[in-house]
């Protein structure tokens, strides 16, 4: 039997430690060798980020942008865990989490001096996250339906509720575990039905009426499965994702922006404090009109640079942000947990 000595063990341990530490080297080196870590959702989102933002950034700066896949809650938790040396140099966030990051003073102020392209983003998008970031693209939460089953779709939230309550359709709605449900469903429907951020009773009353004819989706793909498998006929969903499914061959799917206006569900970009300064160049590319137009074409979502012109395919699909309802994100955050608790008790899982 081969004898292992303590020295050998320590030597092996040191080698292992060195190997493990090497995993951290790219991050340590990034501040010095022109590398940054940027964030993206998976799938087509990642492909769009790489081709529309990463490629021009790398071409212009000669630096490298490593793409970290995940979700806003995860990235924010990572920055919260190590704000002095954030593991990512920019954040893709939902507005509520962007506001949480802003309130925790974890992110930088956005100014035109640092980001020249910010001048072309309507001020409302920057103000909505307290100036500590800005919204660069958005989806509209409206009514997506299966054309083969629903020949005359509801034109408004109110009609949607009535017809689902009557059992004419089975609706698929976002579950309360989906991060933006408080905005795209609770607030949007309450607002459309005569309530608002201070009064969501109309929403809960509507849900009580519809309860026998609704199913809940836990994630966007889940919604598509509900429609594709016939489990639901229509539902509350995003315009961009609807068109992505359409372009992927699901030509039976269609989208309506309700008469009351669907909620604008923005995607914000932020820069953590102590991030690599190259992050400003990268975010400036995100706000660039040409890059945003390309991103919109791939993603089928509206973008916020006012100089963007959509092509003939995209133009009829994108709902201008002025025709959406801009959620009072900051106020929604204040009452969101009460809404979630009420949902749990009245509607269930």
């Amino acid at each position, binding site marked *: *039997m081969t*004898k*292992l*000595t*303590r*020295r*050998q*063990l320590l030597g092996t*341990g040191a080698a292992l430690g060195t190997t493990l530490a090497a995993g951290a080297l790219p991050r340590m080196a990034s501040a010095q060798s022109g590398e940054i870590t940027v964030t993206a959702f998976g799938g087509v989102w990642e492909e769009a980020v790489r081709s529309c933002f990463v490629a021009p950034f790398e071409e212009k700066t000669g630096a490298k942008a490593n793409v970290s896949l995940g979700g806003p*809650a995860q990235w924010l938790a990572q920055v919260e865990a190590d704000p002095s040396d954030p593991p990512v140099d920019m954040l893709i966030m939902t507005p509520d*989490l962007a506001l*949480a990051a802003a309130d925790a003073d974890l992110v930088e102020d956005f100014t035109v001096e640092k980001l020249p392209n910010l001048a072309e983003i309507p001020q409302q998008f920057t103000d909505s996250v307290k100036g500590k970031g800005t919204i660069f693209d958005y989806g509209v939460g409206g009514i997506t339906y299966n054309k083969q089953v629903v020949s005359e779709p509801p034109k408004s939230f109110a009609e949607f509720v009535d017809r689902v309550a009557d059992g004419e359709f*089975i609706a698929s709605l976002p*579950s*309360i*575990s*989906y*991060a933006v*449900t*408080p905005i795209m469903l609770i607030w949007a429907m309450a607002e459309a039905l005569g309530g608002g951020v201070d009064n969501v009773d109309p929403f809960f009353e509507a849900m009580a009426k519809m309860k026998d004819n609704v*199913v*809940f989706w*836990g*994630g966007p793909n*889940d919604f598509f*499965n*509900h429609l594709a*498998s*016939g*489990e*639901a006929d229509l539902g509350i969903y995003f315009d961009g994702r609807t068109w992505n499914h359409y372009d992927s061959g699901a030509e039976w799917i269609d989208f309506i922006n309700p008469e009351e206006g669907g909620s604008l569900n923005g995607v914000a970009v932020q820069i953590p404090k102590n991030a690599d300064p190259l992050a400003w160049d990268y975010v400036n590319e995100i706000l660039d009109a040409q890059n945003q137009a390309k991103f919109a074409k791939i993603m089928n979502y509206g973008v916020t640079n006012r100089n963007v012109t959509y092509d003939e395919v995209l133009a009829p699909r994108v709902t201008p942000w002025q025709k959406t309802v801009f959620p009072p994100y900051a106020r929604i955050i204040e009452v*969101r*947990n009460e809404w*979630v608790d009420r949902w*749990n*008790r009245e509607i*269930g*899982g």
Partner: protein
Amino acid sequence: MTEMTDVSPPRGRTALRPWMLVLPALLFLAGFFVAPLIDNGARSFLGEEGGFTLARYWQLLSDRFYLGVIFETVALSAGVTLISALIGYPVAYFLVRKAGKWSGLVIFLLIAPLLTSIIMRTFGWQVLFARRGLVNNLLVDQIGLLDRPLRLLNTPEIAIAALVHVLVPFMVLSIASVLQGVDRRLEESAQMLGAGRVRTFFEVTLPLSLDGVGTGAILVFMIANGSFVTLVLLGGGLQTLPLLIYQQFNTTRDFGMASAMSTILLVIALVCLWLQLRLVRRQGG
């Protein structure tokens, strides 16, 4: 091993003690399991403004809604475990005693579903049991047995069925490995002494295989207790602690409450583990 302890190490070197071999695993567990658990537990006692608080635990253990969620979590896991045992035991018995040369195939069929991702399997349930899915199409359009499709998905029953589908292999393999070791001569002796096949099974075979049932029950219970994806996609109104923990992280960002919930989930798992072990040992397994 004797060689290691008997031979003096060269000068300046210290021979490796046996316990040192487990040191890397212990360090790994300490760093990536124990420390996060302690941190998680500590977070649940940290008040909004700092300082110690029991408020979250008080809310979880005094509010009828949360008590209901805790009950539903335990009931779901216990139900899935019981059904898995009822289905799994005959399959394990067949595998060990009857399958013969087909046992390899049976094991493959058991394990095959585990080779695909749990998300894909769950989506498979959606395709099969949706309102216009395969089963309803068969019942309504092909056979004409029903006038309108049944609502099969998004019900607690389908979530339980899907969990059982995923977890039965763990039960079968646990029972089969113990059944394999049961001395057939004991069963033969019982029958020679006049016991029928049924009595022999209940008084000899089953008690001797309870260790396997216990192991399977622990595995199934633990996994069901923390199950998440299946319930998110097929939950149908079920509310369990893992779902609420995810909600606290993803929707409300109340990490303190999520920590308290996860601590309670852990305690439930440990208590049930202890109870199951006691039960199995008392039954003579």
